[in-house]
């Protein structure tokens, strides 16, 4: 079990927190824990309560839509340095996809209730978090739209 | 015109023949094996067709050309060449609307291909300076590049050109601003300038090549005098001074800088996509290849035929046409003709003949459109 000081160091190494002031980061690390998933482990299921915010340190996760009577359809894979699970920010705080680990994956996760409490108390902290997060979402939306064009399909 | 200036290699003296003896030129060419092509009046317009005698030429006709309008009428003074030109150009002979490239025959192993070239020996009579410039431009496209169009080159090498110096500007002409006329510069075998006075009707005939020299020697004309040369110069200058429009000198840059001008949409509201401009333009060279197969599937032919960038499927690739909109197609034609042609071939694609203006059913005038696109241009 990694100590809190150790967690703060791990978070500092993750690209998402680059440039964040130490105080804010330390506050957030209070909600953090280091996690590991093995190949095939489901980290989340579509529709279930989204209680954690994830930062991939190493490994790969697949975002899937489950299909009745078929294997799930993978729509994106995320890798080292990526962030996932922002449904905790948006009511009703439920996962939008299944998330499955592909290969051994290590993540830092932040607990949602803890986070929401801290952000309510400290708006500046909220700004730090959201201002880092919006560009990530913008890039992901853009990538998703590129995928939507089905550009390799027969035109 | 003095024979000592210009790029002429040949220094023979110009001669003057009676207009009534014009037919001797036609006969001399036919005797040398040329199929003579020249202007004739048919269906109310001047066309370019095979002819065998000078009395088939449109003597005494003059044209009135305006944007979207063309009329032939009887001239006050009967001359052979006072009309300027019609809808057709010499490209229909050097670069025919339909040309067979090859025939393929099925064999046991697969197939065999036999190329074909149709290259009659043409003599063109009455090639205006703008038209000659246009032929030289098509040479750059079909002969001077990395690849040569075999049929075009064969016909071009054989073709004998009897040019005609205009003494009258047509209603839509602007060759002076394109630096292509009205006087022919080079590349001709013979050049005629029609001279009419109260009591004479003659042609000044100059040779521009060895071939032309030989023909000239067979005509019974007298040597040209200084007065003849002066009269010819005066006549041609009259044409040069009576142009009704001009192309702005910076047309190439204006178009390159205005690819997204709202003016294109404005033009597209008028343009019918009829492709007339591309068919009457003497330099337009777009063409397509089509394959036809015999009913028994044993023989297939490859044909090349005229095409136009105004057709919707001209730019079609899987997925659809690139230029789906009339404005985009019009822009393609005009910016190619007046702008990118320079990058491709080192010269403008336009020779200032004005046909596109005359034969456009809605009278779109490319000189006016260039001005409209850059209002500050003089």
């Amino acid at each position, binding site marked *: 079990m990694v100590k809190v000081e150790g967690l703060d160091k791990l978070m500092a190494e993750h690209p998402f927190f680059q440039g964040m002031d130490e105080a804010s980061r330390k506050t957030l690390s209070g909600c953090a824990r280091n996690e590991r998933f093995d190949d095939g482990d489901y980290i989340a299921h579509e529709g279930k309560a989204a209680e954690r915010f994830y930062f991939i340190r190493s490994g790969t996760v*697949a*975002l899937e839509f489950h299909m009745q009577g*078929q*294997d*799930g359809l*993978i*729509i*994106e*894979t995320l*890798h080292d340095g990526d962030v996932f699970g922002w449904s905790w920010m948006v009511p009703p705080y439920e996962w939008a996809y299944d998330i499955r680990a592909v*290969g051994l994956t290590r993540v830092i996760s932040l607990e949602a209730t803890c986070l929401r409490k801290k952000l309510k108390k400290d708006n500046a902290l909220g700004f730090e978090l959201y201002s880092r997060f919006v560009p990530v979402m913008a890039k992901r939306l853009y*990538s998703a739209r*590129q*995928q939507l*064009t*089905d*550009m*390799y*399909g*027969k035109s | 015109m003095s024979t000592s200036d210009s790029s002429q290699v040949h220094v023979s003296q110009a001669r003057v023949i009676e207009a009534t003896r014009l037919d001797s030129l036609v006969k001399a060419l036919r005797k040398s094996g040329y199929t003579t092509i020249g202007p004739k009046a048919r269906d109310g317009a001047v066309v370019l067709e095979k002819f065998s005698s000078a009395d088939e030429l449109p003597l005494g006709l003059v044209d009135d050309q305006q944007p979207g309008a063309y009329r032939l009428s009887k001239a006050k003074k009967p001359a052979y060449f006072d009309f300027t030109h019609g809808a057709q150009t010499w490209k229909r002979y050097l670069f025919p609307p339909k040309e067979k*490239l*090859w025939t*393929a025959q099925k064999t046991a*192993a*697969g*197939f065999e*291909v036999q190329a074909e070239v149709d290259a009659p020996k043409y003599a063109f009579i009455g090639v205006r300076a703008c038209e000659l410039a246009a032929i030289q431009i098509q040479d750059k*496209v079909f002969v001077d*590049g*990395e*690849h*040569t*169009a*075999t049929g075009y080159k064969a016909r071009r090498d054989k073709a004998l050109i009897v040019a005609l110096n205009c003494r009258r500007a047509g209603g839509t002409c602007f060759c002076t601003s394109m630096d292509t006329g009205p006087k022919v510069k080079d590349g001709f075998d013979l050049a005629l300038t029609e001279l009419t006075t109260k009591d004479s009707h003659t042609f000044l005939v100059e040779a521009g090549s060895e071939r032309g020299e030989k023909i000239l020697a067979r005509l019974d004309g007298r040597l040209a005098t200084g007065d003849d040369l002066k009269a010819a110069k005066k006549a041609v200058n009259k044409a040069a001074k009576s142009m009704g429009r001009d192309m702005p000198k910076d047309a190439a840059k204006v178009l390159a800088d205005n*690819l*997204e001008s709202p003016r294109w949409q404005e033009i597209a509201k008028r343009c019918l996509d009829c492709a007339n401009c591309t068919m009457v333009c003497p330099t337009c*060279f777009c*063409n*397509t*290849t089509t394959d036809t*197969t015999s009913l028994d599937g044993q023989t*297939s032919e*490859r044909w*090349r035929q005229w*095409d136009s*960038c105004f057709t919707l499927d*001209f*730019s079609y*690739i*899987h997925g659809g046409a*690139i230029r*789906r909109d009339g*404005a*985009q197609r019009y822009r*393609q034609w005009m910016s*190619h003709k007046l*702008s990118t*042609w320079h*990058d*491709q071939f080192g010269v403008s694609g336009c020779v200032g003949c004005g046909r596109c203006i005359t034969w456009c059913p809605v009278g779109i005038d490319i000189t006016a459109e260039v001005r409209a696109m850059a209002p500050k241009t003089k």
Partner: protein
Amino acid sequence: MSTQPKPDPMTPVPFTIVRRRQELKDTFTVELTPASANRFAFQPGQFNMLYAFGVGEVPISISGDPGNPEKLVHTVRNVGAVTDALSKLKKGAEIGVRGPFGSPWPIVEAEGNDVVIVAGGIGLAPLRPAIEHVLANRSKYGRFVILYGARSPADVLYMKQLQNWRGRLDTYVDVTVDHAGRDWAGNVGVVTRLIGRANFDTHHVKVFICGPELMMRFTIKELSDQGVSKDDIYVSMERNMKCAIGHCGHCQFGGHFICKDGPVFPYARIESLMQVRGM
């Protein structure tokens, strides 16, 4: 420049199919042998006009090894009447060939630099000769990166070769698909996402991109965002083609004839044109 004597550029020469393989559901590869000469020299990035007797011609990139000119290889996607006719031809049948035409990938200018290949869909076929050339002259280049995106795992072209290239210790290969099922353990996502994870020197690199025009646009944007200069990015463009020798006007893109000024262009030269709708 071809080493063959110059035949009439509009007359196809019959070549015999010596091998044919189905690559994907709608894509096949033919290996042709020249009937007369015994080699067909070409540069990576060039294309031929392939003629199906009685049906017509299509421009198809040459996708074989330029260091092995005894084999003329073409990978063709079945999208229309002519490619459909070609797809039905068996070993021993003849295909008419005119070419090679067009501008090549700048494999000589790229020497001394890292080389990044970004291919999408069938776009891997015109890039394969460049890949073969770099691998055959590996020491002349810096890092070598191959990034490939396809629609789904069933649409990944040259899968075996991608795996072979990946297996080399001196080559980085990453493949992604737009969507997949569970049996795909690789990346899912748009090909541009692979660029940030690849390791190359953005200041000393040449990037060759080939794929649908939309994919090339996205890729160029990502590369530019990552600091790659427009002068170091090369794309292979496509337009309607009939003659392939600059005589018919169909393939014009602005003032460029795709058949002779392209299909390979440095992006810097065509950047402004790519942004104009309906160019």
